[in-house]
Structure formats: structure tokens, C-alpha cells
């Protein structure tokens, strides 16, 4: 009871305060059991998938493996992002009296969502290493840049899922809301794959690429040759990156007051327009399907 009183720290510059909070949230993310399960699942499925590369050359391309981090880290990450955001609700009143306002706290949570992105980037490195070590011939139909964009869209989905979880936690408050969010996301992706079963067209490509995760190759039947769907993987990568920006900005909105709220709304509109532009550019190339 006799410990000396400490002097308060000097007010830090906002970026330092945000960085400290983001690091703390990142550590919480790393310790989340759901995230750890997702990482374990990604490891296991990747070992199986990379083992498959050598035996099924020509049937699929490694570029089409983006669903692995998207599912293991992105979809499960919706729960992690939501849980991290809501876990401190019980202490909201004490937290509300701290100098870190809601915008800073939400921004820190959004930055912590980069944790699964780093894991997913490592996963991309693993895939390329496995291809190099196994000396596996790749399909000439998909260029190196396009393949990288396909794989990186899985990385973006690994970040986007938790961002969507933070967004849902900031806007919606009912039990089971993260589950509903996951169902909505999964439903959106499933609906978009319907386009792969239709004859190639720009409308079909638009439906196909509007989802935050997409499969790039498919086949018309079990014994039919596989083909790559039309559209630009590069512009699609830009589109999903902007969707992440939209989710993060929308998550910041509920805590923001004027004039910051106005700036966020303008940023939201800008990101929305840019996302639509990227989607349009992704759809513009010839929708014809090219055999792998």
C-alpha cells in the first residue's frame, strides 16, 4: 500500500498508441483457439494438396488452391474477429473512459487481422517451395503473374474474413451473429460458383467474380478436361483488397463522431467506387474458358 506513485506517461503520438494496441490485439489473435485450429487445418490440408500436385498435373493448377487459407483462416477468422471485438464488452464502461476511443480500438483490431494474412503469405511461400522442390510442371495456360494473383487472393480472404467478423461485431448485436455472417459469406461464394456451370459470358463472369473468394478452374464433368474461367486474376485481387478496405472502414464508422465520421463516409464511397472499377476491369477480358 505504500508503493510510490508513478508519473503518467507523456501523451504519445496517435500512431504509437495505435501500434501498441494493435500489437496487443495481434497477440490476442495469435492465442485464439479458433485461429490455432485454423492454422492446424491449413497445415494438414496443404500437406495433402501439395502431395497431390505431382500426381494430378494438368487436372488442376496450384493457383486454384486459394480456398485453403480462405476457408481455414478466413472463414474461421470471422469467428475470431467477432470474438476479439466482443470479448471486452463487459468492461465497455471502464474502457470508454480511457483516452483510446472506439475508432482507435477498432483500428487496432483491424490491424490484428493481418495476423492470419502473414500465416497465409507463409503458406504461399510453402506452395512455391513445394513446386520448386518437386520440380512440378505447371500449366502454361496460367501465367506466373496470374497464378500469384490467384494465390494472393487467398491471402486477402484470410484477412478479409476476420475483418468481416469485426465489422459484424461493431454493427450487429444478436446471439449467433458471427454464424449468420459465415453462412452469408459461404452462401455468397456458393452462389457465385453457379456461374461456372453456365455457358461463358460476361454476366456469368461478373456473378462469378463478385464473390470475395472464387475458384478459377473447373471442368464440365468428371472425365472432361479442366479449364480456366475467364476474367483477370490481377484485377480480381485488387477488388478483394478493396473489399477488405471497405470492411475495415465500415467497422470504424459506429464509433466515429463528426468530423471523422464524414471523412470515413467519403473514404467508404471512394473505396466502393474503386472496388466496382476493379470488378469491372476483372470482368472485361474475354469470358471464353481456356483448357488447362
Amino acid at each position, binding site marked *: 500500500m505504500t508503493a510510490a506513485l*508513478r*508519473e*503518467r506517461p507523456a*501523451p*504519445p503520438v496517435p500512431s504509437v498508441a495505435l501500434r501498441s494496441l494493435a500489437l496487443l490485439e495481434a497477440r490476442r489473435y495469435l492465442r485464439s483457439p479458433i485461429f490455432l485450429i485454423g492454422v492446424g487445418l491449413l497445415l494438414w490440408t496443404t500437406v495433402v494438396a501439395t502431395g497431390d500436385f505431382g500426381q494430378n498435373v494438368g487436372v488442376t493448377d496450384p493457383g486454384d488452391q486459394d480456398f485453403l487459407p480462405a476457408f481455414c483462416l478466413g472463414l474461421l477468422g470471422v469467428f475470431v474477429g467477432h470474438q476479439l471485438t466482443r470479448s471486452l464488452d463487459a468492461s465497455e*464502461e*471502464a474502457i470508454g*473512459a480511457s*483516452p483510446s476511443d472506439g475508432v482507435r480500438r477498432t483500428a487496432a483490431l483491424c490491424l490484428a487481422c493481418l495476423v492470419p494474412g502473414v500465416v497465409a503469405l507463409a503458406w504461399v511461400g510453402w506452395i512455391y517451395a513445394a513446386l520448386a522442390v518437386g520440380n512440378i510442371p505447371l500449366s502454361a495456360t496460367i501465367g506466373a503473374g496470374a497464378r500469384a494473383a490467384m494465390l494472393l487472393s487467398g491471402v486477402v480472404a484470410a484477412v478479409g474474413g476476420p475483418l468481416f467478423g469485426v465489422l459484424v461485431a461493431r454493427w450487429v448485436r444478436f446471439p449467433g451473429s458471427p454464424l449468420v455472417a459465415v453462412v452469408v459469406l459461404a452462401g455468397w461464394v456458393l452462389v457465385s460458383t453457379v456461374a461456372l456451370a453456365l455457358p461463358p459470358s460476361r454476366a456469368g463472369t461478373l456473378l462469378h467474380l463478385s464473390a470475395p473468394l472464387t475458384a478459377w478452374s473447373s471442368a464440365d464433368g468428371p472425365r472432361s478436361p479442366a479449364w480456366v474461367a475467364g476474367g483477370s486474376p490481377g484485377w480480381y485481387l485488387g477488388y478483394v483488397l478493396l473489399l477488405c478496405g471497405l470492411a475495415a472502414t465500415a467497422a470504424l464508422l459506429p464509433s466515429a463522431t463528426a468530423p471523422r465520421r464524414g471523412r470515413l463516409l467519403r473514404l467508404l464511397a471512394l473505396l466502393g467506387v474503386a472496388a466496382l472499377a476493379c470488378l469491372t476491369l476483372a470482368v472485361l477480358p474475354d469470358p471464353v474458358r481456356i483448357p488447362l
Partner: protein
Amino acid sequence: MNSHIAVELTGVTKRYRGTTALDAVDLSLRPGITGLLGPNGAGKTTLLRILATVLAPEAGEVRLLGRAPAAAAPLAEIRRRLGYLPQEMGFPRSFSCFAFVDYMAVLKEWSAAAPRHEEVRRVLDLVDLADVSAKRIRALSGGQRRRVGLAQALLGAPDLLLLDEPTTGVDPEQRVSLRQLLSAAGERSTVLLSTHQTEDVAALCDRVIVLDRGRILHDGGVRDLVATATGRVWLADAPDPGARASWRTGTGKYRNVGAFAPEGSERTDPTLEDAYLLLLGSRAPVTEAAA
């Protein structure tokens, strides 16, 4: 000691769906410990929430630590110098005692890890939780959890410390310990202690505010309030039906608190609780304010 006014409220009003929680309250606080008493629903928690900047008043002017908390910059500056223990403080399930206070320290802008951890250890030591700092909060007793809440409020030795029922669920030994802690805090800071425990106010505070139905019934020295009950508390062999309150004490005699002690009765020294009961008994009938 800083003699500046830490809290200045002028005509502060807050209503909830037609119920007036605070009715044109004027108040100023200087360094020292001020007790805030009042029955349930008197508006104590609303007052503390407004002072903690988590609730905005509908009308009136608020100045805290020399600043108006309306704009973002002065609000952040106020919050840097503010410690707040809410009435109902929950905790995240998975956090340890240390991790929670550390998290709060980061929110209070202790960015560098080493001094932050030192500060967290200091406040946990202050509230006698150093031994259980690694324990999950959900494994702690109610009194220990309350002290975790108090520890986070003490981070950085705030200039304005707002405590809403800090001794709830705390055992007598710990309560004495907390009194020592709060009296030390009151030497340097402005402490507002909202409580139902009149003995805590009597033991700690030089000033007491009694709030009822959103209005200040009494604002003055603790001794002044106690003095209003002089000659109005007496012991008798039977309860007095005319007394405001009457109860059998451990000695077998009845302690009566009322408007006037009967002639020849055995008068006794009043406590703050007696004076508080008499003050509430003298209040005006329920009016529009509490309707």
C-alpha cells in the same frame, strides 16, 4: 496539493425516458475525498458516468480538470488524467488479472512495455492482488474482482478518481486496506466516492454530497451533516413508533432515530448513517422530478 477545481458542473440535467436522473445539478470538486450518498435511483451512477465522460448530459455545462469534454482533443486529455471504476464492471473471461490491467494500461496510452508492466505490478500491489496476478479473473472472488477494477482505475495515479461502490463485496480487512489506499490517493487527487456504506464516507471523506431524486439534498462537511442529528438519536428499552428508524442493538437496547428525542431518554452520539436517514426522512414528497 493542487488546489484547482477538478470538477465544475452547472445546471447538469439528464433524463431517461421521461425520468429525471439529474435535475439541474451544480457541483464543484477540489482535491480531497468527497463522499456521494443517496438511495438507489438517486442519480449517483448517472452523475459518475457524466463525470467519467461516458455519458453526455442533456443540458448544463461540464468542466473537468479545467477542460470541457465536448471536443475530441480536450476529451482525450481529460481521459488521460481520469480513473474510473464503474458500478457494474464485467471482465473478459479469458484474461488473467495482469493481462486485463495491462490491456487497460495500453488503452491509457502506456505504450512502452517495461514501464507499463512496472505500473501494472504497482497498482496490483496497491490493491493486494500481486499474488494472484497470473490467475484468470473468472477464478477470483467477487471482492478480488472488484479490486481488479480498482487497480485499473488507479493506473497512472489519476488526478480525478471516480469510484462507484468500490467496497462492494470486499471483506472488512480489505476494506480497511482500501481506505488507506484511498486516503493516500485523496492527498494528491480529487476522489469522488459513491457508496451506500456511510461508514466508509465517515472514515474517509471530509465532504459529503447527498443526492436524492436527481437533486443535491446536502453538500457540506461530514461533521456538519452528523451534527444535524445531534439530540435526535436515543437508546430505549422499546422501539419508538414515532422514530424515523428503530432497531434492536447488540446490547438489547433499541436505537431510535427520529425528529426529537423524548424527554429523559438516553441520548447517544449520532453517526453519519443516522444523519443520512434523518435527511432522507425530511425530504419533500415525491414530485414531478422522480415521477
